[in-house]
């Protein structure tokens, strides 16, 4: 394998790898702005310029592939001087309003300025300013903060496939806009906030919500469709504040769609049922768990039941439910539901050029692998339906059949349920889901179950009055929280 030397370190690399990536593989940071592994290379920001033996001028590391025997210095006097001067140039027209900027704390401009820039500002002239146009409901633009890295323009062209973000004019007056403030049409608008290295493009949804240094990140997987984009859940205490994509070259590369990104809002939706409920005399009442379990038992004992499971549940939950249905619901048939019209894995397909899939639940593949059949209609003679659901699967029409709901439900849809036993959403539980390709991926709990909701294992345990854990719910046994 070819070898090169960076800052005295000998590093092996695969042919065709640029110097930024080769350096990174050896733990050496070369700062950059315009470079992004998922976008075309433009070598514009000049931040990554390094000294290469035998070449008189500094070369941009992003556009230079390593060659066998190449000797590179990223911290030579000339490289360091260049980094300082590029940082200086980038900041002379920047408003330096970190104190009110959402990006603060995860801003490349801040970080690289601190590590590679100068502590002094020599600029004494007037800064160039812009009047901001709107960009629609997802992205907030602040053109004064822009450092013209053009990642957004390239993303529009190369990834979103909608040339709706462009640069107008030229030189120092270059302004990056949508046409006449038209809202972004792409379904990947949230990615603009991810790739913008400054606070120029930020999420309106997250604006002024929380300082990022208070947030913790838990790696998880999006439940928005069967792609299973990897993502991070950012949270503090018991609240989720945002989700952004996590790189996975097999699944979603660096991106995720807006539907998936903003899906988490239902977790804290005030219309989400987070206290057990029962129905009596046509009225819904909030009750404690004992009463709710009692109502559920009453609704199902001695009755022919049918069990519906959302394909938004995890493998562990599904296996537990299958055992429960067999042993505690008289061998009730189990059917899955999720996306109308997408009943099987064969029905599922790509619905756009990038990530989105027809199945709006993340575990269709998993549910099928467990041999569960898609729901068609309530079987003849069924007297009660027990519906288990994660929060995403679309409830089918169950006619006048009495329903016991276990999992995540919302007031309107559950208003006639005999009982609601509130469960954990994707952000509150660990579990395995299988994406469209057959890859097993892990959900990880970021926050505790909201309100009085419980993990499924705990609910089933309670319902079976502590019947042998291993018999009923071995797979879900590990889910019990205090």
């Amino acid at each position, binding site marked *: 394998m070819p070898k090169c030397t960076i800052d005295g370190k000998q590093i092996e690399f695969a042919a065709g790898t640029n110097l930024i990536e080769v350096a990174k593989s050896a733990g050496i940071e070369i700062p950059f702005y315009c470079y992004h592994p998922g976008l075309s290379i433009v070598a514009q920001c000049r931040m990554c310029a390094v000294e290469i033996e035998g070449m008189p001028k500094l070369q941009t590391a992003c556009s230079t592939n390593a060659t066998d025997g190449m000797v590179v210095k990223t911290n030579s006097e000339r490289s360091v001087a260049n980094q300082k001067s590029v940082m200086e140039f980038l900041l002379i027209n920047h408003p330096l309003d970190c104190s009110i900027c959402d990006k603060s704390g995860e801003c490349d401009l801040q970080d690289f300025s601190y590590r590679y820039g100068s502590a002094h500002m020599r600029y004494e002239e007037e800064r160039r300013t812009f009047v901001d146009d709107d960009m629609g409901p997802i992205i907030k633009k602040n053109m004064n903060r822009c450092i013209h890295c053009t990642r957004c323009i390239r993303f529009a062209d190369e990834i979103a496939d*909608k*040339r*709706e*973000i*462009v*640069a*107008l*004019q*030229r030189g120092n007056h270059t302004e990056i806009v*949508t*046409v*006449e403030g038209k809202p972004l049409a792409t379904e990947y608008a949230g990615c603009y906030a991810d790739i913008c290295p400054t606070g120029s493009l930020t999420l309106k949804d997250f604006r002024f919500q929380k300082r990022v240094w208070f947030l913790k990140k838990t790696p998880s997987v999006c439940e928005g469709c069967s792609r299973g984009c990897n993502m991070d859940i950012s949270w503090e205490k018991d609240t989720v504040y945002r989700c952004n994509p996590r790189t996975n070259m097999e699944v979603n590369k660096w991106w995720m769609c807006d539907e998936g990104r903003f899906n988490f809002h239902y977790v804290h939706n005030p219309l989400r049922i987070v206290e057990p409920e029962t129905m009596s005399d046509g009225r819904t009442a909030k009750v404690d768990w004992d009463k709710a379990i009692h109502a559920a038992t009453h609704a199902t004992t001695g009755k022919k039941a049918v069990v519906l499971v959302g394909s938004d549940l995890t493998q562990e939950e599904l296996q537990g439910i299958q055992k429960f249905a067999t042993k505690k619901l008289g061998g009730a048939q189990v059917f899955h539901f999720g996306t109308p019209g997408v009943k099987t894995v064969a029905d599922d397909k790509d619905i756009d050029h990038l990530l989105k899939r027809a199945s709006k639940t993340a575990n269709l593949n998993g549910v099928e692998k467990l041999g569960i059949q898609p729901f068609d209609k309530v079987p003849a003679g069924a007297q009660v339906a027990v519906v288990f659901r994660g929060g995403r699967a679309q409830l089918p029409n169950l006619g006048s059949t009495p329903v016991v709901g276990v999992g995540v439900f919302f007031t309107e849809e559950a208003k006639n349920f005999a009982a609601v036993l509130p469960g954990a959403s994707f952000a509150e539980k660990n579990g395995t889901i299988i994406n469209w390709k057959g890859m097993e991926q892990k959900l990880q709990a970021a926050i505790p179950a909201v309100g009085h909701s419980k993990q499924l294992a705990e609910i089933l345990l309670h319902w079976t009055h502590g019947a042998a854990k291993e018999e009923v719910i071995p797979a879900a046994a590990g889910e019990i929280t205090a």
Partner: protein
Amino acid sequence: MKPKTLSAKFYEAMDKLVPRYPTRVALLLPALHQAQEEKRWLSDETLDEIATYIDIHPAQVREVASFYTMYNLKPVGKFHLKICTNAACILRGADELVEHCEKKLGIACGSTTADQLFTLAEEECLGACGTAPAMMLNDDYVENLTVSKMDEILARH
């Protein structure tokens, strides 16, 4: 479908150019020139129509049109005076010439007279340095400019 505002002549001229380029997008600069020839300036409507003809996003037309200084994205006067004030012309008194025009027309450089007759602008090097000072009057070059020659032109129009 929006009604067409560009003439048949525009579409004929553009269709003639199609076989000369391997891509449709390469027609963009010629299209903007052709449209400006008949409309004098490029309104949003015109830019959108060009976008439709070439089959690209309207934003793409604007990013190109706004990059180049010759495309008028705002209305211009009947007589567009573009006086070069770059090195060779400034050596031969071009900035005094501009000042003179500002006074004579009563407008600041970069603006149009109230009667929409004259637009006065500074221009970069026009490639007529040997006959400096020089300017463009609409599409034509006027070279070896003097104050009196300038006055004559202003009076004539």
